[in-house]
């Protein structure tokens, strides 16, 4: 198997604090990987370095064999990376259709893009709301709009930062189905807190802790890993109880 994404000693320091500390990460083509870890473990910072929103302090990012370290976000997007950010980043003042259209239109003619948009509207089951302003949608629906925008880019790698935040259990289940479905086509990395959701979708899980990779294994092994239970899952259980 070939790696589609690789980081080498990737670090990001804010002042004296290393938010991400010499991370060596590798993702195979077609894989679906989950990143978990406590708040402040560096997951979102890691994502922001991958998609170009933050410049790494040190280290390299290799995407499809090319060094994209420090490249501009639009360049990385054009190379085939799509990201759904933690707080939905959509165009609240524009209609649902137009949100997705903007993404689809970059690489396509207007007619082709419009056709893709209609497909995606069906896929996220919001076709009946296509002309509403995205700012008027519920939080979970806005997450789906953003996901549709990412898919409209036709990326090869999709980064999803907490895709189920603020969703009801029903919505979480359909999101899991959607993610498994799009994994047929794209490689995916998901940052998530919800272990129930991770069990629905994941095979391999990478655990971040204090800017470093603490563990990386099959999801069942991770659940049993004492170090992981100690820093993260134990607290999750406490919070759940």
């Amino acid at each position: 198997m070939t790696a589609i994404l690789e980081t080498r000693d990737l670090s990001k320091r804010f002042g004296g604090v290393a938010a991400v500390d010499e991370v060596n990460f590798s993702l195979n083509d077609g894989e679906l990987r989950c990143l978990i870890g406590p708040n402040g473990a560096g997951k979102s910072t890691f994502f922001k370095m991958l998609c170009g929103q933050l410049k790494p302090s040190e280290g390299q990012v290799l995407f499809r064999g090319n060094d994209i370290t420090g490249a501009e976000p639009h360049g990385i997007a054009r190379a085939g990376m799509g990201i759904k950010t933690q707080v939905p980043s959509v165009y609240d003042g524009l209609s649902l259709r137009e949100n997705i259209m903007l993404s689809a239109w970059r690489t396509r003619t207007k007619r082709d893009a419009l056709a893709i948009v209609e497909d995606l509207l069906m896929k996220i089951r919001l076709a009946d709301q296509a002309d509403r302003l995205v700012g008027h949608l519920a939080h979970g629906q806005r997450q789906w709009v953003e996901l549709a925008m990412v898919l409209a880019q036709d990326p090869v790698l999709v980064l999803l930062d907490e895709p189920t935040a603020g969703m009801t259990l029903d919505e979480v289940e359909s999101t899991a189905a959607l993610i498994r479905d799009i994994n047929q086509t794209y490689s995916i990395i998901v940052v998530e807190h919800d272990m129930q959701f991770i069990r629905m979708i994941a095979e391999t899980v990478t655990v971040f802790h204090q800017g470093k990779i603490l563990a990386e294994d099959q999801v069942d092994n991770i659940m049993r890993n004492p170090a992981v239970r100690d820093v993260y899952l134990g607290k999750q259980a406490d919070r759940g109880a």
Partner: protein
Amino acid sequence: MSALKRHPSLVVMFALALIFVFIVPQVTELYIINDMTVFAVMATLALSLALVWGFGGILSLGQSVFFGIGGYVYAITVLNTGESTIPILLGVVVPMAFAAVLGYFMFYGRISDIYLAVITLTVSLIFYHLIVSTSGGQWRIGKSPIGGYNGIPGLPPINVPGDPSARLGFEGKYYLSIIVLFLTYFGIRWLLATRFGRVAVSIRENEARTELIGYDARAYKLALYAIGAGVAGLAGVLYANWGGFISPVVFNIFFTAQIIVWVMVGGLGTLVGPMLAAVAIQYLVTQLGAAATSEIKAGLTVFGMRLDLKDFLDSNIILGVIFIVFTLFIPKGIVPFIRDWFSERRTHGRRQAESGSPAE
């Protein structure tokens, strides 16, 4: 009928264009036509900022820079060549090139919006002081003086391309200005419907997302800024053509502030609003100018101090009052205010029709 339903504003604007081109000049006095010419020029200038700020989200406080450069470039070149075709083109291209250079540093330097506003305003003031300090006879470019504070008078009117003897009269200037205004309006409408225009609007909405879906926001902003500068430059050319005169007043802070007021009063994110506001405010200022020079005896005596009404008819005071009133009471501007009012009435009516079930 179906066109009216799909694009009501386009049809209305097209009808207005026909009325202003074919009917108004037939039934209007020449001195009013002359006033309307400059209103059309100001409305064109308002459109340039309505595009750049209202749709591109770029707060260009010094939009008059491009208007002024357009006017000056036209004035200096037309005095040198005696034929207006190339000066008109230069009056559009030079402001665009200047905007491209200035914009390159601002957009590719990724400075924040507030710094961009201050820089553009500062550039305008620099031009003002630069031009004002060129009053001596040694300051000339070819046959044209620069003229310092007094400006450059005696500009020949625009001529038919290739025929310097066929110059525009008052009516010709009116036709040209009004046609340019409406062509600019329709041109911007078209631009905003293209992919370029949609992306520009998306940058206003959420620049980070636009970059994450693969558009280089810097390049789009730069292009939009340059297009806006070209429109402002063209308005500057027509302004110099209208009065046969250009002076550094176009670079001062009051002139550039009024463009902001037009766009804000008319409605940010609309085109018709700023056009209407420019005309209405310009009309008011003209009337006030007339009133201030007339014999008005009204006034108050407060604690022995005589306050004459005439002294308060200053256009900048009026502009300031309008700005404050709108900021406080109608911050969205007139056109969005009216649009919201209508859509609220419509939703209200529909809700009542649905037997009072509260929507959402």
